[in-house]
């Protein structure tokens, strides 16, 4: 009892002491966040100038960042901000700069080249932006020349789109129970097999919409032990393209962290489908797909929006097959910038090094999201 009181008194006193210390002798970052003196160092070296710029971007201090640039006369502050956050609504718009790395590439007495890798965090994971910056000496300080990527301009034109959409009228509460509702789309798992990975068991496969109507799909898998008892149940979450048009195929990947394949007797698969209103647009072409071998194995290519509207977010899903045509891996990536009509946007999907050698072919599908949907 006495010990408890002693501990409580100690915590109270320590709290008061820390508050006093923090108030009278605050740390530089606390001062900066409170709107006081900047935590930035003098831009006396090229690296320090780039680090200061990175800190200002992280603090969303666009005005300060813009005014510190050496080539700011070439563009406006708004263009600079949109170059980093996206000219159109996209994942970048709501991403926050988590951290950045600065790497000097070369330097002379009057100018230098420094690489900055910006690590953004978004709702669907992290993405990295790399920019090579030219830094120029200006008196006793160094100024960064920002390599602005201009807003992509789509030439004035008319893109004819024969919109095709499906609308659904479901049965109402007043209908007789014998009146059938509209049939759920018929979907079929055309390939599935479990794989043991270091992080656990992974179920890979492909799902086909074999119907003539669009389907909202998801896949759930349950691992069963050899005695038939369930071990774990998981869904595909976002490792699938949820909207499937007629005869469209999507890969899926389901993770079972910490599970061991040797303990699994069988797998119960549950593909789910529901009839949804959908549009057949936009059409996205995937150009120049290349499987890049290890090290740093990846699938790269470019997405070209062949429709007339802006696609805000594109989700690239790559299915990788071995020589026998069996699925060996499914990987994905979200594009961090919007897809403008006819403007290629690159993608780079990482492939695990150990699997890269087994991969013989691949197939890529794109799921798209547009603000307000394609009407």
């Amino acid at each position, binding site marked *: 009892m006495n010990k408890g009181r002693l501990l409580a008194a100690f915590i109270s006193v320590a709290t008061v002491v820390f508050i006093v210390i923090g108030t009278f002798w605050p740390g530089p970052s606390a001062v900066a966040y409170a709107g006081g003196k900047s935590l930035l160092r003098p831009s006396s070296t090229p690296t320090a100038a780039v680090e200061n710029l990175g800190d200002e971007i992280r603090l969303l201090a666009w005005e300060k960042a813009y005014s510190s640039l050496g080539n700011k006369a070439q563009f406006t502050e708004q263009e600079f901000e949109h170059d980093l956050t996206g000219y159109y609504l996209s994942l970048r718009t709501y991403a926050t700069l988590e951290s950045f790395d600065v790497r000097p590439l070369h330097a002379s007495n009057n100018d230098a080249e420094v690489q900055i890798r910006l690590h953004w965090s978004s709702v669907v994971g992290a993405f990295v932006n790399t920019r090579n910056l030219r830094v120029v000496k200006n008196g006793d300080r160094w100024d960064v020349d920002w390599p602005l990527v201009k807003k992509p301009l789509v030439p004035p034109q008319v893109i004819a789109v024969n919109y095709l959409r499906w609308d659904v009228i479901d049965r109402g509460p007043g209908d007789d129970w014998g009146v059938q509702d509209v049939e759920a789309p018929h979907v079929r798992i055309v390939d599935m097999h479990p794989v043991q990975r270091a992080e656990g068991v992974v179920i890979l496969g492909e799902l086909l919409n074999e119907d003539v109507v669009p389907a909202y799909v998801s896949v759930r898998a349950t691992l069963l032990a050899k005695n038939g008892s369930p071990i774990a149940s998981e869904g595909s979450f976002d490792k699938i393209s949820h909207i499937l048009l007629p005869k469209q195929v999507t890969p899926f990947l389901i993770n079972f962290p910490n599970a061991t394949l040797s303990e699994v007797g069988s797998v119960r698969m549950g593909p789910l489908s529901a009839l949804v209103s959908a549009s057949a647009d936009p059409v996205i072409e995937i150009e120049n797909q*290349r499987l890049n071998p290890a090290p740093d194995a990846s699938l790269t290519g470019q997405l070209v929006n062949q429709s007339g509207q802006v696609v805000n977010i594109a989700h690239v899903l790559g299915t990788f097959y071995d020589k026998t045509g069996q699925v060996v891996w499914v990987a994905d990536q979200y594009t961090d910038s919007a897809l403008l009509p006819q403007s290629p946007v690159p993608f780079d999907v990482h492939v695990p090094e150990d699997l890269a050698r087994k991969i013989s072919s691949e197939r890529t599908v794109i799921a798209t999201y547009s603000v307000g949907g394609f009407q």
Partner: protein
Amino acid sequence: MRSRLACLLGGLTLATVQMACAEGGSMDLPTTVEAGNAFSIQCTGSGKAVLYIVGPGQALRRDVELGGTTSFPAGSLYNAGHYLVVLVAGPSTGSGSLNVVPASQPADLSFLARPSRLPVGLHDGISGTVYVFDAYRNLITTPASVSFELSPPSGAVQQRTMVTHDGAAWTEMDSTAKEGVDTFKAQVDRVSSTRVVEQVPGDPCGLRMAARQSGPYLEVQTDPVRDCSGNAVPDGTIVTFTENYGGAQSTVDVPLKHGIAQVEMPAYNGARISVASGVVLGNEIQWGR
């Protein structure tokens, strides 16, 4: 042990009823009453009494004169089932039971046709199940003849006649080779119910494409896409074009519009272009060379 106890209780109840009947008069009850029909109960004895009829979802109370006949108009009892009839005459009580059976005349059908949409050319792909009800929604359990008729948009009408068993009858029909909307009708006497079944085209068959140069691009276009029965595959169906060239690949998923799929792809000399829809592969084109 439970059954013995039930027998004992039943025997005691029966003894009590018989005694009550002996003291207060007895009832002449119909064994069965058709749902909704008029019926009467005759009570012997003299004086006044109260008659109760209690059954599934219904309870009736009548003040009666013993020695007379109490009439119940049509529609008094309409829920099929077993009813308990109790006559209370002062301190004495008599009871009996009667059964209300469904009306013999069908008045309503519940018709379940499945599925509402299926591919053409499926043997026994369409099922129809009928439950026959009277005017009071009682399931008619006596055998009745049900006529099923499936009328496709073209071709012969398929007909089956089935007899209900415990109030239900079912059948299976084939989807025909022609796409369109079928009318599926079930009829018992003059009562009928109709459902709509949509026959949709099957997988593409003989998928073919052609390519022609248009500047730096190839205009790739399929022939009109049809299933193996010659039905046009519906617009919106995804056709995948794949172009392989120099170790790289371009793919595009294109929805059918006006029966064909078309796309522009980069024109590379020696490129191999293939086409597929779902699990169906089409032809392959080697461009140039």
